[in-house]
């Protein structure tokens, strides 16, 4: 075996070990997230409940199955979806700080739902129309976030500076909250109530009924993301190079926007905006795995994003006997320093793009 070949296979083994350890950590974190909560359930009882035996405390069964399991599953989904959508956006925009939260994609999802609930009177209209309120919300959120992605893509073809794009994304967020504020002002009590319930979205607010809508939608997003792995790698080499290999740029962009819109919009529709995960996780992975290859980055971002949000949720649950902390605050505490670091060491980040 040649010297180069030995280094390549050594790094391959290194990455395999890293990948498996993250996977194992993910499983441990999942169990820990289910185990930790404001009500103290002994671990022995917990395993009993998880393996289908009923515990002596009937309320514990409900707590595990209706409260903690949906929350942990949502945390996994949110982390995976946000990280993958952030990775796609960074390669699509060729911008290291791109992410659904920072570029206003989450705001677009909020606007979509606000228009649905507040401008159509109330949820009942769409409930009759689509048959299930969850579908109405997720379609509105995905449409909203995809439109913002299109807009940002259009802007990024004209402006090349990453901080300018970031500022435009934040401005867009402000405009959206202003529009939502105006809509709230003019809407009746019932729809306002419905919108307030929605805007409270958090990991712990997601119930099985909503997961039935969320999971199939996200699967579509993930499948497209895996199909787009090769085009993403080509995009990294530059648009001209990508074109020269016969890549259909337009089709690639549209598919990426659809996938990102589904992943980021779907999560925002049910959990509300969760910041910084989408921007931070792909970077952490590039550093850990020392690669820009999407064949590794897409699955790695998926599982490490899930792991990071699970850890954030565990931290949020730590103040025992008290109300858990808002998940968005924890993700911001962990994610914002990473974003600051990226901006400060822009030369280092540029080496990836």
């Amino acid at each position: 075996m040649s010297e180069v070949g030995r280094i390549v296979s050594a790094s391959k083994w290194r990455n395999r070990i890293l990948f498996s350890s993250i996977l194992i950590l993910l499983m441990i974190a999942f169990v820990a997230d289910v185990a930790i909560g404001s009500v103290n359930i002994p671990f022995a009882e917990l395993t009993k409940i998880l393996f289908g035996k009923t515990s002596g405390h009937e309320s514990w069964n409900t707590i595990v199955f209706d409260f903690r399991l949906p929350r942990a599953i949502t945390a996994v989904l949110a982390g995976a979806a946000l990280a993958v959508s952030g990775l796609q956006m960074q390669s699509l925009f060729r911008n290291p700080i791109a992410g659904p939260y920072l570029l206003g994609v989450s705001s677009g999802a909020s606007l979509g739902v606000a228009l649905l609930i507040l401008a159509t009177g109330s949820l009942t209209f769409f409930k009759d129309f689509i048959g299930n309120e969850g579908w109405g919300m997720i379609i509105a959120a995905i449409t909203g976030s995809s439109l913002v992605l299109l807009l940002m893509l259009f802007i990024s073809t004209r402006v090349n500076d990453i901080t300018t794009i970031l500022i435009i994304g934040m401005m867009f967020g402000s405009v959206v909250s202003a529009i939502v504020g105006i809509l709230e002002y003019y809407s009746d009590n019932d729809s306002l109530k419905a919108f307030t319930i929605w805007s409270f979205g958090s990991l712990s607010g997601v119930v099985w009924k909503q997961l039935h809508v969320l999971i199939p939608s996200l699967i579509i997003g993930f499948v497209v993301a895996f199909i787009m792995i090769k085009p993403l790698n080509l995009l990294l080499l530059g648009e001209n190079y990508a074109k020269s290999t016969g890549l259909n740029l337009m089709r690639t962009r549209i598919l990426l926007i659809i996938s990102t819109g589904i992943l980021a919009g779907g999560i925002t529709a049910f959990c509300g905006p969760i910041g910084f995960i989408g921007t931070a996780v792909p970077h952490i992975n590039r550093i850990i795995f020392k690669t820009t290859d999407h064949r590794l980055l897409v699955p790695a971002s998926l599982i490490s994003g899930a792991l990071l949000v699970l850890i954030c949720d565990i931290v949020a649950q730590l103040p025992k006997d008290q109300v858990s902390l808002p998940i968005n605050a924890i993700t911001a505490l962990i994610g914002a320093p990473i974003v600051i670091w990226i901006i400060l060491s822009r030369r280092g980040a540029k080496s990836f793009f």
Partner: protein
Amino acid sequence: MNLSSKHDMSLRHVMFVILATVLIFCCKEKSNREQSVAEKKEPFDSLTQVQIKYANGFSVRYGDGFKEVEVYQPFEGSDDTLRYFLIPRESSAVPKGGWTLIETPIRFMVCLSTTHVALASFLDAENLIVGISGTQFIYDEKVRKLIAENKIAEIGNEESLDQEKILSLHPDIIMAYHTGIEGYDQYERLEESGLNVVINADFMETTPLGLCEWVKFLAVFTDQEKIANERFAVVEHEYNAMAKLASIPLKKPTVFTGVDWNGTWSVPGGRSFAANYLKDAGADYVWKKNPETGKLLLDFEQVYAEAADADFWINPGSISSWHELMEWDPRCGNFKAAQNRNLFSNDVRVNENGGFDYFESGVTHPQILLKDLIHIFHPELLPDNELVYYRQLP
């Protein structure tokens, strides 16, 4: 924590006694000097005096030609005492340092809370009100008529009071409340413009009769002690009779309240106002053993762990039906009380703008509220009763 606050209280009482003694001597001297002035008016000590039995938040002391009103602990965590020195109109007296001088009977009053309006209604003193914050939330027919006739002005909401409007009304007092939130209370700005702000701490009371007894607080300012004593005695008698009735049944149904709001479920502490109502109504409140007088902030699973099997669910936020509750959070359907549709809310008397009469006339009608609760928990005790403030949610 409760122990230490009790300790504080007793210490505060001792301090108060010492302070009061000192003050009495000071005042005696002063009032001797002012006697000639005071004699022109009807001296206060010939009026019926109010006696405070249930309220812990204020005290009244009658002197020769003056009344001293003190308000203790105007908000949670405060150890302030606010002092008001009341003299008959057109008599003259110089108040001691730290005392706000107010001439009685007051003629014009501005109210910053609907509970203050309720106190005035109880004393038939609605016509003293010249301004209210949040007129659209008023439920009382008589007061609404006065608002419609422009005899009572809107003075803005609590975050942004219309100060110029208030000044133009020339109120003798502004009845306000102190939230203790920095930058939120605007009464200091009003005081600076020379207005008399009287802080009402009725919301700090932990018993229904204690809250209602604040009618005597207003009565001291309106010189309506007699009427306040008489009317309060009726309420007190009926309330205590009801509570006695509810103490008979051996089986006390378990009860919990509130609803999850953005991941937080606020429940009343075991010694809170709401908990005392439930206790007096013969119910077994799920958190009755908790020592807090304020509220507890829990999350959904904590509430579920304790209240899953409770018999009754009272006041689930702004939820108005079982169906709405299921839409709010389908997990609410796991509670036994929800499955049995034992859901009750105090939203019967609500005006078109969402003003709850429960927080208005409910303050001065604790006997009716208690009757409602007993009707819910022990229907056999009150066979012919009809609910007034509460209803079973459809």
